[in-house]
């Protein structure tokens, strides 16, 4: 088994409030890893530490190491911008750029970084939208506003936008929580397909979703990693009493 990301002794703070405590875990390549836990347990902060988005918040701080293919993304001289090009992110609420067309949204990452080769952009748009299972629905309307799509389509557009910069890892922060069940189920199917080519890490408060889409699951509570293992084991034979209580719905 190959590990893509190796998190070592990760701690994170907002000001003086510590939100992650000594997290150590290894994330497998081309698998879906789910992070579950009650609200405020630090799930979102954990994935935001993986693409160095956490440090953008004033007063936020991180210690520890996060190795991507063996290289520390917090290492000296590492540019967070390059890290973010390798580790893409999809947010909780679909956030296409409202002033851009579907086409421009898809290649926003390339265009904003100065790529203007029309041929390459065209190719990337088609490839990314196909990979996000959106191409057939929008191929005739590429010049329409990204905001004119339905919520589920917008979220797939955001996935296409993340795929267009050819990342190796995709982080998803509760990607279906703002969507209806049909749209959510399409995204879940898509996540399974994406795992063939990408390492996917998904934060979810929905345990059924974690059980359906993920290969491995991590349970976080009060900023600590309580249990981490294969999804099957964690849901069927939880080792920790706390995990068992959480997945059986006693709290959370």
């Amino acid at each position, binding site marked *: 088994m190959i590990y893509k990301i190796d998190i070592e002794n990760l701690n994170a703070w907002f000001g003086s409030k510590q939100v992650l405590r000594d997290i150590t875990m290894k994330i497998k390549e081309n698998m879906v890893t789910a992070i579950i836990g009650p609200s405020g347990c630090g799930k979102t902060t954990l994935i935001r530490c993986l693409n160095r988005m956490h440090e953008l918040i004033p007063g936020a701080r991180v210690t520890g190491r996060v190795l991507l293919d063996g290289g520390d993304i917090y290492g000296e001289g590492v540019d967070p911008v390059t890290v973010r090009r390798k580790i893409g992110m999809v947010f909780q609420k679909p956030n296409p750029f409202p002033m851009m067309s579907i086409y421009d949204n898809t290649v926003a990452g390339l265009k904003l970084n100065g790529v203007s080769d029309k041929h390459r952009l065209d190719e990337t748009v088609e490839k990314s939208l196909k990979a996000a299972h959106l191409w057939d629905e929008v191929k005739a309307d590429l010049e329409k506003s990204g905001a004119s799509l339905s919520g589920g389509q917008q979220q797939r557009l955001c996935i296409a936008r*993340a795929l267009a910069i050819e990342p190796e890892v995709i982080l998803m922060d509760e990607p279906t929580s703002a969507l209806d069940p049909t749209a959510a189920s399409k995204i879940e199917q898509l996540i399974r397909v994406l795992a063939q080519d990408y390492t996917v890490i998904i934060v979810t408060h929905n345990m059924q979703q974690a059980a359906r889409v993920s290969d491995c699951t991590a349970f976080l509570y009060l900023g600590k990693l309580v249990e981490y293992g294969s999804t099957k084991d964690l849901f069927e034979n939880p080792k920790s009493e706390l995990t068992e209580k959480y997945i059986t719905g006693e709290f959370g």
Partner: protein
Amino acid sequence: MVSLAYLALIAALIPLASILVETILRGLSAVSFSFFLEEIPPLGEPGGGIGPAIQGTLIVVALASSIGVPVGVFSGIYLAEFRHARIATVARFLNDVLTNVPSIVLGIFGWTLVVVAIGWSVIAGAIALAIMMIPIVTRTTEEAIRLVPATMREAAIALGVPRWKTTLTVVLSSAKKGIATGILLSVARISGETAPLLLTILGSRFWFSGFTQPTAALPVTVFNFSQSPFRLVDWPRAWGASLILIFIILIINIIVRYATREKYGASNI
């Protein structure tokens, strides 16, 4: 409650409408084709027009904007992006103070800084008006940028776009309507300013003759005509010049509205 609101609305509209109606009634008789094109006659002399005043206003306002808009917009970006920095807090406070400085003081500033050195000039007027513009543009730019949702900024940053580029592309283009409105407000404000211009460009009856020379401007011309003892000849001209000033401001408004209209119909933000 609703009728009270209507009453308040009417109370607010009466002065506005009466100014407009009065200006049109009294000024329209002075306006003719030659009124736009001819040089300004001496007080009391029939004929002539206000051509140089229109030209002068456009030149002074354009020059003031070319100084004031970039300085104001970039200051606004700085204040919005580094809102917690100590220097930002100080700058924001001073900017608010500057907003409320009486315009005659800015005229004296322009006079001391430029007129004393090179004489009454377009440059002096433009600097005085630019200083008047800067705090308005700075404040509205900062407000407009702060209204851009954080999710928009995060979306771009997560795509590996550097922070400065995110600000200059995604954030600015989301805020452009608000910024354009601020610029428009400040242009409209300085177009009608009289006090700083009296002390800097002096006024003139002739066409523009260089940036270091005095020039005419609409507000100054309105002022001069209105001070004339030859009321039958010159007062209608003052009204006519006011009317044209109002129309210039109206046209600026329309241009900005047209230029910043939403590409995809209703606003999505």
